[in-house]
């Protein structure tokens, strides 16, 4: 039995192709992946990402608890800030990656991956006993839209009671008529944009307003291309239960100067076993699971995520290379159906998003 978001019928009406994803029937594409990607890069698109999980941490020690749970610095971030962070086990492996929204001193929203809701909630609950705060899984009460693209602000401010020109990675509580809405200037596309948390009927009404304003509905396929073009990690690909944040190139999110947090001891002493790199192919499309070889045709790693980039019109991939086999010459090849294709290492994201 799969779950359906409260917008499911709207997606079907729009002719979306529906696929099962993380236990949900989700729209993978409406018209064309290419058109949907370009709409977000150049104009504005909207994604129904209501399958994602929302937790609230409330009480006197809400901040301290979340700061203890995650590797990034929550305590020193100003109120109204959004913070991306891995959530690690004591041994440093990654349970999930998530965004922490500091709504108020005693009230924090955490948005987690749909496939990890139960795992994350149980883990967080198991760490709660020493803190004076509550943890609530509000995923069933919230729908979530991601309005993304250069025209996102222009569109969104028309419909909400109040919407300042917020900083990137900040959060603001506003309203749609009488209903409370949490708006964050975050997203998974590299473009300017907002993630909008509200009850189901509010989100349905906003969706209808966006459709009437010619916002392009976008599916999960476009979302994956967009995030990969700007090299954002996806849990299950660049991150998983066996890897630590360093393996995925997320060392910048591990604040080892914090007094204490789950996984600190392990992460202080742990070296990474892998290096996650960016590859561009002039010919051939790299796909998840394909082998990466060095110039001597020896297996040194795997493609974690790969696709055809809509913007570059080239194959692009994030690849996980075993650190002890990382080649000095930095020459890489990808095995595509038993043929070797040359892959160029690049240090910068494949596409530069236009976010603030």
């Amino acid at each position, binding site marked *: 039995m799969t779950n359906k978001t409260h917008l499911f019928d709207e997606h079907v009406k729009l002719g979306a192709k529906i696929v099962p994803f993380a236990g949900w029937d989700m729209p993978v594409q409406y018209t*064309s*992946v*290419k058109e949907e990607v370009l709409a977000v890069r150049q104009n504005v698109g909207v994604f129904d990402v209501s399958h994602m999980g929302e937790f609230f941490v409330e009480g006197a020690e809400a901040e301290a608890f979340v700061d203890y749970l995650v590797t990034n610095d929550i305590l020193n971030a100003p109120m109204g800030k959004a913070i991306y962070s891995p959530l690690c086990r004591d041994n440093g492996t990654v349970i999930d990656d998530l965004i922490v929204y500091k709504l108020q001193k005693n009230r924090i929203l955490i948005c987690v991956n749909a496939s990890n809701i139960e795992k994350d909630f149980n883990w967080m609950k198991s760490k709660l006993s020493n803190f004076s705060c509550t943890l609530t899984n509000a995923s069933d009460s919230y729908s979530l839209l991601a309005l993304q693209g250069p025209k996102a602000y222009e569109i969104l401010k028309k419909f909400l009671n109040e919407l300042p020109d917020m900083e990137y990675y900040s959060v603001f509580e506003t309203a749609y008529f009488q209903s409370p809405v949490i708006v964050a200037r975050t997203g998974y596309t590299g473009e300017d944009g907002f993630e909008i948390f509200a009850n189901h009927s509010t989100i349905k009404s906003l969706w209808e307003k966006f459709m009437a304003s010619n916002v392009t509905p976008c599916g999960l*396929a476009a979302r994956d*291309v967009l995030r990969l073009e700007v090299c954002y990690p996806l849990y299950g690909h660049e991150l998983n239960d066996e890897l630590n944040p360093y393996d995925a190139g997320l060392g910048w999110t591990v604040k080892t100067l914090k007094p204490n947090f789950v996984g600190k001891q392990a992460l202080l002493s742990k070296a990474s076993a892998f290096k996650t790199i960016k590859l561009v192919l002039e010919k051939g499309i790299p796909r998840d699971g394909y082998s990466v070889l060095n110039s001597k045709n020896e297996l040194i790693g795997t493609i974690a995520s790969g696709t*055809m980039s809509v913007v570059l019109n080239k194959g692009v991939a994030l690849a996980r290379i075993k650190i002890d086999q990382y080649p000095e010459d930095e020459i890489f090849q990808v095995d595509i*159906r038993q043929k070797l294709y040359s892959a160029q290492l690049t240090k910068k994201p494949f596409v530069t998003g236009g976010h603030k």
Partner: protein
Amino acid sequence: MATNIPMNLKYTKDHEWALVEGDIVTVGITDFAQSALGDIVFLEVPEKGTHLNAGSTFGVVESIKSVSDLYSPVTGEVVEKNSQLEASPEKINSEAYEAWLIKVKVKDASETNNLLTAEQYTEFCNTSH
């Protein structure tokens, strides 16, 4: 899904079309297939002289997010491949029945009688998807 299925062609259950002209069979993928695949961005078909068996894979078509094998409708030898299409595979989306992939010289033309007629393929698309 509205789909175009010309009467003059034969079809496979893997959504290839075949135009039979004597012992030369021209092969492509159907409108139904291109629509299901979405934006096609890569095509790999065999060189002239390659021997193909009916029902076996002969190439690959890739959309932005997927990889699909191509299955030969007939047994025979590739006499021509559409090199221009490899350079602009998106034409499969815009004109599925103009965008042929390969031409195959068949040993036994009667083999094409085993392929689906337009009516049978229409029925197949309506019931299986």
